[in-house]
Structures are given as structure tokens and as C-alpha cells.
């Protein structure tokens, strides 16, 4: 759409700007402030320069948390994206069944994060959970509170359960925008199921897939509540992801300086990767003339 140039539009944006400035910029400034100072209590602060940043960048503990975080995000993206596409392709196109699928699939997305954690915490328990009990009955030695591998599997299956529907719903929305004529043309050309997917469906889904990957990347990179409820970051530190580590540091140990420096680096990493996604996304929009 052609937009008119009008700088007075700033007045319409002003309320949002003030509100977000209050709830985002001021806190962020506090974080920057802490990241550059040291304190020995009593509200006395000393200039620390970039010391905390150096500490954080050389900290083995944070490297380990970052490593786990990247692995977690990579695994869930590798499972959820193909699975989501697959489910979207199999969804009924219209009518009652399509509505039913939409509603049921959206259900996990609307459950409070800690309840998601609680559901899986209960579900996986060997004594009272269906999953844990069934596995024990099958003779599998499964215990997510003491075995690191089991804890990882539980957290990953939980995330797949929680968020695959998001990818599927977005892909489904993309698929719905493909005109029936495309499929008819493919039929006349006797295109195989694979070529229909590769040359018609996948290109049409490109835009929504990018959004899906962006959202899943962002949200999985800052995941906190769900794994915290299920495993508390354990056993040991095996499921301590970045946010869990950060909260431990900031609120548990009150290491304000390092925690603040850590926060800023963390935020910048997410911002950088998301900016790349965003740029690609807007370029796609322009190319398609949306």
C-alpha cells in the first residue's frame, strides 16, 4: 500500500513509545548501569569498567550453559519444523474436522508455561505418571530426576508437545493460501507428490516457515519456566539453560554485576540473530509484493 509521508504520525505512536520506554528502556538502563559497576553492599557502587563482561566471556559455567542452550534450540528446531510441516500437510482442508483439529492443536499453546511443566512433571513420574509408569512396566530404566539423558529427553519431548502445533498452524495458514488451480495444474502434469511439495507447497510456505523458525528460535532461546518446573535445571546442571542460569545468578546469588553483563550479552545474541531473520523476512515480503 502507498503510504503518505507524515511526521505528525509520531503523535499516534507516542503513547506506545512512552509506555514501552517505561517498561523496557528504564530497566535496560539499570542493567547497563549494574554491568559496569561493582558493589560490596550498602548501596555503594564502584566503577568496574568492562571487567564483568570479560568475566562472563571467559566463564566456563556460562560457556557450558550456552552450549546446552544451542544444543537444545538446535534439537527442537530440527524436530519441530519438519514435524510441523508434516502435520500441516496432513490436516483436513476444510469443514468440521479442520475446525476440530485447529482447536485441539492450539490447546497446548494456551496452557500457562508452569502448568505445561507440571503436566510433564506428573506425566513422567514413575510412581504416578502414565508415561513413567508405562516405561517402567516395559522394563525401561527411566528417571528424569536422576538421569541426565532422561531429563533431556523429557524436556525435549515436552517442548515438541508444547510448540509443534505452532509450526503446524503457521504452515497450515500458508498452505490455505495456495489456489486449487495450482494443484490441478500439477495433476495435469502428472507431478509426483514430492514435486508438488517441493515446487508448489514449500515455496508458498517459505514466508510463514521463516516466521515459525524465528518465533521458535526466540522462545526456545529464552525458555525458562517449563524446564525449571520439570527438572529445576538438574540433575546437576545438565538442563540448566541460559535463562535458568541467569535467574540463579541474579536472584539466587545476587551477583548483580556479572548477571547484568550476562543479560546484555544474552540479549544482544538473540537480537543479532533475530535481526538477520527479520531482514530476510522483509526482503521476502518485498519480493512477493505483499
Amino acid at each position: 500500500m502507498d503510504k503518505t509521508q507524515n511526521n505528525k504520525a509520531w503523535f499516534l505512536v507516542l503513547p506506545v513509545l512512552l509506555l514501552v520506554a517505561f517498561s523496557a528502556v528504564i530497566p535496560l538502563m539499570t542493567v547497563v548501569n549494574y554491568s559496569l559497576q561493582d558493589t560490596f553492599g550498602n548501596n555503594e557502587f564502584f566503577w568496574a569498567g568492562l571487567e564483568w563482561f570479560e568475566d562472563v566471556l571467559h566463564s566456563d559455567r556460562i560457556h557450558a550453559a550456552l552450549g546446552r542452550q544451542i544444543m537444545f534450540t538446535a534439537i527442537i528446531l530440527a524436530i519441530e519444523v519438519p514435524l510441523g510441516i508434516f502435520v500441516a500437510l496432513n490436516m483436513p482442508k476444510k469443514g468440521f474436522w479442520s475446525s476440530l483439529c485447529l482447536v485441539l492443536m492450539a490447546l497446548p499453546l494456551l496452557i500457562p508455561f508452569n502448568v505445561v511443566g507440571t503436566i510433564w512433571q506428573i506425566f513422567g513420574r514413575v510412581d504416578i505418571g502414565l508415561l513413567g509408569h508405562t516405561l517402567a512396566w516395559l522394563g525401561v530404566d527411566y528417571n528424569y530426576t536422576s538421569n541426565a539423558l532422561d531429563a533431556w529427553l523429557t524436556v525435549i519431548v515436552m517442548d515438541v508437545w508444547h510448540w509443534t502445533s505452532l509450526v503446524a498452524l503457521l504452515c497450515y495458514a500458508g498452505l490455505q493460501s495456495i489456489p486449487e488451480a495450482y494443484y490441478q495444474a500439477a495433476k495435469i502434469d502428472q507431478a509426483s507428490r514430492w514435486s508438488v511439495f517441493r515446487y508448489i507447497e514449500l515455496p508458498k510456505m517459505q514466508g510463514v516457515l521463516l516466521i515459525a523458525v524465528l518465533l521458535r528460535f526466540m522462545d526456545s532461546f529464552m525458555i525458562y519456566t517449563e524446564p525449571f518446573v520439570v527438572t529445576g535445571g538438574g540433575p546437576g546442571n545438565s538442563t540448566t539453560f541460559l535463562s535458568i542460569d541467569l535467574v540463579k545468578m541474579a536472584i539466587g546469588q545476587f551477583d548483580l554485576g556479572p548477571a547484568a553483563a550476562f543479560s546484555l550479552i544474552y540479549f544482544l545474541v538473540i537480537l543479532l540473530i533475530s535481526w538477520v531473520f527479520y531482514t530476510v523476512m522483509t526482503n521476502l515480503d518485498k519480493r512477493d509484493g505483499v
Partner: protein
Amino acid sequence: MPLRGSAFVMFLYLLFLLVPIYWLVNMSLKTNTEITSVFTLWPQDLTFRNYAVILTDPSWYMGYVNSLIYVVLNTVISISVALPAAYAFSRYRFMGDKHLFFWLLTNRMAPPAVFALPFFQLYSSVGLFDTHIAVALAHCLFNVPLAVWILEGFMRGVPKEIDETAYVDGYSFPRFFLRIFLPLIASGVGVAAFFCFMFSWVELLLSRTLTAVNAKPIAAIMTRTVSASGMDWGVLAAAGVLTIIPGALVIYFVRNYIAKGFALGRV
């Protein structure tokens, strides 16, 4: 396309989604002795005690009231500031518009863990700690950008000629906006409100950090009860089921916009 195969795939997937939820509902209808002593696939001794405990004890049900208060406050604030801003983004080019639009999105990307401590200090220093408005304002961090993006997505679909015709007909901007424009994007406002409601409802980290007693959300009350001695699994499950209900109730009405909402209006 083989229809049978598709139905089977969907059946398996939905089963995978629903079994854990079923297990929670199942547990919420059992007595604690049944939960811990025998393993049953459905309640043998059906009881509503767990729900009764929650609905009669103020320290439990006030959690729902607190959550509802700040969620509604947040939704109202987010939508009312986002409407004019979304209009500006959808209709005008102005200095720094693209940067501003992306900057809004960055707030959606900010890990709540980063903001937990500064929020705590900010709201404590202005005397808002443990109030509903503090949580409502904190949730604006991600809900205002969300509302702006969703509403902008809907407003782009309204042809600009409508605005111009209204001005020619002598409508003032506020009158045009309320009388003509708003009814046209009513579904967009509904969807944006639903998503603000949802994201504020499911968030725990910030709402837990910013409250102590008076505004404590249900989600935080649940975690406290888990750590108390003697697990009351039945009540915990019942509390969980009750938090799922608000979403489940309205989901049918927004089913066709779910994808659009989650994708920040970009589908």
C-alpha cells in the same frame, strides 16, 4: 492424496497432544490415596474434593482473581495504546518508522529473565511492588509490541480509500476512527485482545517476581503448594486444569486467526 493415511497421522498427533492433558484431568478427579497407591487409567472413586478445596479457600481462588485482574488491565492498556500506533504504522511513513517498528519487536525478543531483577527494583522504588498494575505494566513489555504488530496486520487489509472518503465527508479523525474504522477491524481487535490475554495469562517469571501476597497470580500459588510438605497431587492437578479453562473456552472463536496471532499478524 491418501485420505486414510492423513487421518491416521492426525489421529496419532492429536493423541500425543491430548494424553498428557487427559492425565492431568484424570488426576484432578481422583483422591490422593488413589493417586499414590494404585495405578488406574480413569478415576475409580470419582471425587470433586480437589476442585472444592480450590473454590472454597480464598488463598487459592484469590490467585485466579489476581491473575484475572492484571491480565484484564494489561489487555485494556495494551490495546488502547496500540490502536493509534498501529494506525500510524499502517497508513503513514514518518521519520524512523521502520526502526521503531523493529525496536518494538525487539521487546518481544527480550528474555523475561533479563528484566526480572530491574523490574523488581523499578517497581519497588516507585511503590508499585505487589500491585496488579505493576504486573500489568510489566507484561506490556511483550504485549504492546504484539498488539501493535497484530493490529497493523489487520489494518493493512483495510483500503485507504475508506479513510479518504470519510475525510471528504467531513469526519474528524477521532470520529472517523471510532465510528468507521474501528468497526471495520473489530475482528482484529478481538484477536489482538485474545492474544494479549493469553500471553499475560501464561507468563509466570515476571508476575511471580513482582508480587508477594496481594497480587500473587494463580500460577505462582501453584508452585508454592508443590514445594510444601506432603504433595497434594489432586489439588495441584485441579489447579492446573482450572488454568487451562479460560483459553479452552474462547479458542473456538479465534480458531481461524490463531496462526495470524501467534505470527504477530504476519500471515
